[in-house]
Every structure is written in structure tokens, then in C-alpha cells.
């Protein structure tokens, strides 16, 4: 068995960068990172294969994080472009593996209020099965 998280993340970053320009994509955002940015998080893996071989299931949470928005337009545009990646098929390339399926689990938005600013966040949970 392998733990192909780095290959999955690399595949996701490539796919997102191909769709969206001007947004940094992080797995760990640097201190004082400029907004908006995209965060790939919660990449917990489950193995769902059979005796025939391993199938690795990832359900990462892709977060689109904007700060102090006056309009939701740019956030929704970013979220739309990320959804455009998903076609319920082998929608990204993962080096060394075959992508069986990529599909949407759910999408949500949240707002976080801090003392001096507000974050508007798009949350996109996707399913990626690879073997």
C-alpha cells in the first residue's frame, strides 16, 4: 500500500492553476499570505479496494479564502472555475496512479468575523478515487 497524498495534491494544484490565474494554492498557507488564496485541506485517505488491488479514496476540502469582500462576485467566480474541473470522470492527472473518479461531495460558503476583518470562504469537498 502507498500513501499517495503528495501525488493527489500535485494533481489538484496543477488542475486548479490551469483554471484560475492570480491565486496562490497552498496546503499550508505561509504567515501573512496575501488574500485571496486557495487552500487544499483535510486530505484524509481511506483504502476501499479489494483483493484485486488498492483503491485510495481522498475527500479533500478545497477552500477559497477571500478577505473583506464587498461583493461575492470574485469568490463565486473562483468557486465556479474549481467546479468546472469536476466532470465526474478522470478529471485530474495524478502521477503514478490512474484516476477512477472525481466528483463533488458538497459545496458550502461560510463567513468568519475577526476583530478587524472578515473572511469569506468557499468550501468545496470533492471525492477522488485513484488506483
Amino acid at each position, binding site marked *: 500500500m502507498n500513501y499517495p497524498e503528495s501525488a493527489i495534491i500535485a494533481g489538484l494544484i496543477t488542475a486548479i492553476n490551469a483554471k484560475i490565474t492570480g491565486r496562490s494554492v497552498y496546503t499550508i498557507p505561509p504567515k501573512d499570505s496575501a488574500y485571496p488564496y486557495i487552500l487544499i*485541506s*483535510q486530505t*484524509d485517505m*481511506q483504502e476501499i479496494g479489494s483483493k484485486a488491488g488498492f483503491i485510495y479514496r481522498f*475527500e479533500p*476540502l478545497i*477552500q477559497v479564502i477571500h478577505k473583506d469582500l464587498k461583493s461575492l462576485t470574485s469568490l463565486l467566480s473562483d468557486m465556479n472555475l474549481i467546479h468546472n474541473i469536476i466532470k465526474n470522470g478522470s478529471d485530474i492527472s495524478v502521477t503514478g496512479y490512474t484516476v477512477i473518479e472525481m466528483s463533488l461531495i458538497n459545496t458550502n460558503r*461560510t463567513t*468568519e468575523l475577526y476583530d478587524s476583518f472578515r473572511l469569506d*470562504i468557499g*468550501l468545496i*469537498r470533492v471525492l477522488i478515487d485513484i488506483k
Partner: protein
Amino acid sequence: MSGQIEIDEMSRRNVLAALSGIKGIPWNIALAKVLFRIKILAQLRLTEKMHIVTSRLKNSIYVKMPKQSDADKAGSGMGTDNSRRYSWNAVGKQKAGSGDRDLSTVNLDVNEGAVGTNVEYAPKIERRDSYLYWAAKNINKNVGEYFKEIVASNQKLYKK
């Protein structure tokens, strides 16, 4: 388009026997039990990931059913408190308090149930370090073993 499946007599009897086994299951209680497993696992996850300060978030997690007595029945059977009122501890400058667990914005249909919290900072922790989604994904985890793992891990930390 239509289709027809023909099965032999023995298979038909086996299918009917299997169906009769699930006929008497009270589905609302079964659903509530699943939701309580999620609640318990989410609470343990919060402990494991050291998100506990006053225990407010942990204690606030609530199972809601269209007929709340179903949740109460399942909850008491699993030894977990699910009453509407809950409380949290004083820690440092943070005062102890109490609140209402109700998920007032959640409207349920007949065959639905919900598990969640109304604490305002809950989504922030869920976004950064999932406990509810994680619990739903790990519903088959052995709760007793998981509890022991957390206790052992905390004891190690304490000894350090």
C-alpha cells in the same frame, strides 16, 4: 423501459427471509443511534485533537429528530446526554456558562435526523480540523478502542 428478474424458489425464500428480518426494525431509533455514534466520535475527535478548553463545543453537540423522544430513547440507551440544556466549564478568564443545544435552524422531514451544534465558532474549527465530517466518515470506527487510544495518548503527553 422495463425489466424482469426471475429467481429460483430457494433464492426467493432467502430474499423473503432476509426482508422479514428487517421488517421489525424501528428505523427512527436506528437512525438516531447512527447520529449518536457520530456525536460520540466527534466529541472524541475534539478531545484527541486538543480542541477542548471549556468543553462548550464538545458538550453542545446535539442529536435532533422529528420526534425528539426517539433521540432521547436512543441516547439514553447509549449512555449519552442529549438534553436541551448543557453547560461548560470556567477556564482561566473564560467563565462557566450554560446554553440551549437546539438546532433551531434545522427543519426535519419525517424520515430525517440531524447531528450538529449551534456554537458560533464551531464552523471555524470544522473548517480547520474537521470533527463532524470526520466522525460521519469514520462511523465504523470502534468507539471503545478509539477512546482507549486517546486516553493512552493523553497519558503519554501528561507524563512528558
